[in-house]
């Protein structure tokens, strides 16, 4: 098991690099470096790549707790905040590309989209719910909020459900890929339910309720 220092000095910087990799690839594609090409519709390619990585990192964030339970080790928890914040960064950039590149900062069209197109309404809800989570992710906020912090951060579950739903609803016909993400999400949430029930059965006296 890696120690605290090793996690901080080695594994976290590596995780940051890994999380930044899709952004770096996107940049190489945009600048047409070597074999990297963005393709004929760059604005939409950027938007979709960012959205996809936002979702992947969100699910990776949710995988840390099951990973801790499965391995019996605490280190996965050290990566929850890191992954969650990177997910938020991608989703934020996803929203910015939609807003600026796709919609040309036309507020009227964006409001119409949010009101009339359910997949965008849902995406917006997911994004807005992520904001307080990102803001309160610091150690200071965690201390200040106490037990309320844990309750607040349970918002990550509706965020993940809405995000998958957003993806499922926006594809035209081929739902195989969104269904893959839905499956992963259900497994991660299902794991928690099963684990909690198991914990309750083995140690009923430990819980006051």
């Amino acid at each position, binding site marked *: 098991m890696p120690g605290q220092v090793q996690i901080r000095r080695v594994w976290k910087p590596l995780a940051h690099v890994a999380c930044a990799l899709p952004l770096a690839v996107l940049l190489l594609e945009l600048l047409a470096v070597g074999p990297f090409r963005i393709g*004929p*519709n760059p*604005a939409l390619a950027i938007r979709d790549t960012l959205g996809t990585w936002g979702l992947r990192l969100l699910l990776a964030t949710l995988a840390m707790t099951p990973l801790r339970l499965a391995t019996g080790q605490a280190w996965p928890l050290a990566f929850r905040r890191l992954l969650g914040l990177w997910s938020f960064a991608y989703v934020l950039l996803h929203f910015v590309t939609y807003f600026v590149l796709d919609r040309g900062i036309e507020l009227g069209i964006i409001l119409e989209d949010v009101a009339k*197109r359910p997949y965008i309404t849902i995406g917006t809800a997911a994004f807005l719910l992520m904001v307080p989570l990102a803001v309160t992710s610091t150690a200071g906020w965690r201390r200040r909020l106490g037990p309320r912090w844990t309750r607040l951060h349970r918002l990550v579950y509706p965020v993940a459900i809405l995000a998958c739903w957003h993806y499922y609803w926006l594809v035209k016909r*081929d739902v195989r890929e969104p269904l893959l993400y839905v499956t992963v999400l259900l497994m991660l949430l299902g794991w928690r339910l099963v684990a909690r029930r198991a914990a309750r059965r083995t140690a009923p006296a430990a819980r006051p309720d």
Partner: protein
Amino acid sequence: MLIRKAPDIRPSEITPERVFRDRRRLLKAAGFIGASALLAEARAADTIPANHRRLANVKKVPAPAGLTPNTFEEVTGYNNFYEFGTDKSDPAANSGKFRPKPWKVAIEGEAEVTGSFDFDALVSPHQLEERIYRFRCVEAWSMVIPWVGIPLGDVLKRFKPSSKAKYVAFETVMRPEEMPGQRYPILDWPYVEGLTIAEAMHPLTLLVTGVYGVELPAQNGAPLRLMVPWKYGFKSIKSIVRIRFTEQQPPTSWNLAAPDEYGFYANVNPKVDHPRWSQASERVVSSGLGSLLASRVPTQPFNGYAAQVASLYTGLDLARNF
């Protein structure tokens, strides 16, 4: 001709190639031809790989003013052709196994002459023309594409459709072993489409055999596809193996899959939104960093071909018959 404002090209206006070339040389010498048109031509010629067969004896028409064709790379690298996969890059990547020759088309239904016809029998009696058309996808992106083909009506007339022929139905080839997308029931394969007989006979409706002066690449619908420039792209069915004259409106694939999202007519209409996105504007497909800040452009009724085709629909409620 080159500085004409009207976006349409009627067959009667096509300049014979020799005259056109001479005139073009003169204009070039005089520096009159727009830099963008020359640039597009140069770009296109540069980027067409040598393995694409040039089509001989194509009547060329100059691009109508304001229409600069997309590059060959864009036209052949960004495609919706679900038979080869659902990503825009899939058709180019997954169509290597597809064999467009030999090719036969079955002509059936309400016509005097029916039967199975070889590609050459169908196409070679006609003069190939290059037509530069706007192309508008239902997903709110667009391109400008120099197609090569023949007016569909000229071909259909040879089969002498009867008075019962109110519609024309089309079917795409079914070859799951060559078209990996057909191995999954994304749509109810084979892909089917249809037009009213008036739409099919309209001079703008093209039976396409090439693009950019070369034989149609597999990802663009080789060897034979439709191009109905005032309708959303999915109406312009690709790799056609069956044409049937019918009395009843034929079923169409996207309409069967999602009737509230895709109608039979599918005329480009900025006023009728797709349930999940607006059709009021479109993104012009364009590679390069410069395109990042290019704004969307307003979508035109009938994709800019209203003057030629709106009369086909007088009395029809276009909001309901979307």
